[in-house]
């Protein structure tokens, strides 16, 4: 009974003691508790509910002529919609996939070949590539050209040359009618 209430180890050479156990156990519980308490602080910096609830964007494609490109806003980012002419579609389909940085067939990037929908944010460091307005530099592959660090995209929004590691992202979207889409 005596050793059970003792506050100091009766034999210091014996190795682990009851006190060591209590110290380690309370230390671990304290550390886990502190770790759990930190989570609300970290998670508070993640997107808030109202940010997540941002409505999806509906787009009417009817007025967009063949060869015309428009930009719409989705989740605070530009989305490029390209009404591709036949030549651009063929160029995008005829590429040798083994020559691509991020190999993806054109068919996997479009739902209807004449409509290309991509997030207009360079996958390198987030600049907006040029090529939406007529007269802007579209780069040697006829798609988009990022002025920040010189990434070049083709008519399927695939990275062809420059520092960007990935193709322009295709956002989730669906055709709600023949000429209207809902992004998000």
């Amino acid at each position, binding site marked *: 009974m005596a050793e059970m209430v003792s506050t100091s180890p009766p034999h210091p050479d014996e190795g682990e003691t009851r006190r060591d156990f209590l110290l380690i156990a309370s230390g671990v519980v304290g550390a886990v508790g502190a770790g759990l308490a930190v989570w609300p602080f*970290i998670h508070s*910096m*993640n*997107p*808030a509910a109202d*940010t997540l609830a*941002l409505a999806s964007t509906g787009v009417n494609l009817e007025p967009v002529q063949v060869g015309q490109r428009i*930009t719409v*806003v989705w*989740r*605070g*980012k*530009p989305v490029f919609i390209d009404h591709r002419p036949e030549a651009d579609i063929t160029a995008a389909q005829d590429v040798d996939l083994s020559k691509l940085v991020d190999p993806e067939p054109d068919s996997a990037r479009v739902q209807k070949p004449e409509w290309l929908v991509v997030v207009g944010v360079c996958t*390198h*460091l*987030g*600049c*907006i*590539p040029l090529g939406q307005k007529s007269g802007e530099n579209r780069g040697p592959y006829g798609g988009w050209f990022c*002025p*920040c*660090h*010189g990434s070049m995209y083709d008519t399927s929004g695939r990275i062809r040359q*420059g*520092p*960007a*590691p990935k193709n322009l992202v295709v956002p989730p979207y669906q055709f709600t009618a023949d000429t209207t889409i809902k992004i998000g």
Partner: protein
Amino acid sequence: MEAPTWKNPVIGWIDRRLPVFTMMQHDLVDYPTPKNLNYWWNFGSLAGIVLVIMIATGVVLAMQYTPHVGHAFESVERIMRDVNYGWLLRYLHMNGASMFFIVVYIHMFRGLYYGSYKAPRELLWIIGVFILLAMMATAFMGYVLPWGQMSFWGATVITNLFSAIPLVGEYIVTWLWGGFSVDNATLNRFFSLHYLMPFVIFALVFLHLVALHTSKSNNPLGIDVKGPQDTIPFTPYYTVKDMFGLGVFMIVYLGFVFFAPNFFGEPDNYIKANPMVTPPHIVPEWYFLPFYAILRAITFDLFWGLIPAKLLGVIAMFGSIIVLMFLPWLDRSPVRSARFRPIYKQFFWVFVIDCFLLGYAGANPPEGYFVILGQVATAYYFAHFLIIIPLLSFIERPRPLPASISAAVTAKGAGVPARSAAE
């Protein structure tokens, strides 16, 4: 050191309970300083003074600024036009940031030239590198606050660096933004952190000074103090010299504030942020240009694409600062000052030129020969620390060191105790 006795009974009463006056006497007055310090040693105290100016102007600017994407740009323009002396406070703060980096970069090059990073001052140097990192974070977030085009796109490019981290990169970027792009949540947290960081820097500066006053100041000869004859008390000798240097510095600083307040700025930042249009040529503030050049220099994947160029660029950019922390162990030469290191002295100046070339490459668009220039200068930057300095430690034959500071800098080579000389 024994506590001084205070004539003023109030000071004495406080000091016996809280020895702040003893500490001040010890560290600001009596502090034994090598008697041969040149003007390159002014820049440490200058940096401290600029930090105080930045905090003072920043606190009052924060009273007028609105951290909201709809109001930030307009609130800064209101500071410029309507707030009493708002234009002065903002220009002091804006140019103060540039001055802070000029002063600190000179302070660091001085440390490199005179070997101030070597034993026993390794920790002093490493704390200094942390101060630089904290300054960079503060300056970056402060530049976002006016919410101009460069603010927005600078923030976008730099936060996107973190997306290069494998697996969790995208989550980290979303977490940093508090959304899916740089937006109001981002601006708010940057304002909060921009206000916090200067006090972190202040605490680091305090540690920097504790370490300095423990191992004591280096000097242009790089040799140890041999005794009291080699030192003079900090006050009045270096207090007055620092005051003179401060006067010269203020002429330059206020010269920019009053006569060329936007010299260091980008005209694009007077255009309100537009998330739909990237300016044709994004450049960071001048003090980040060499690091920006290193980031962009890596245009190739490593290990067959296992480490993509983007990640490699980010690693190189952070590595260019982290490598400084290892400098005390990369340089094995026992001689500190470049005055006695004939080969290192040459390479030091080549390194200075290399840093300017990196800045030049960083300021220009990544096209044509600027790409090659950036790559060569980046390779040399790392070669300087990882190849040249370690190699010189072995192949260089240093010139003979003087017997003591006094022997080198006084006429008869004899030390005159400074206290008696002053009296």
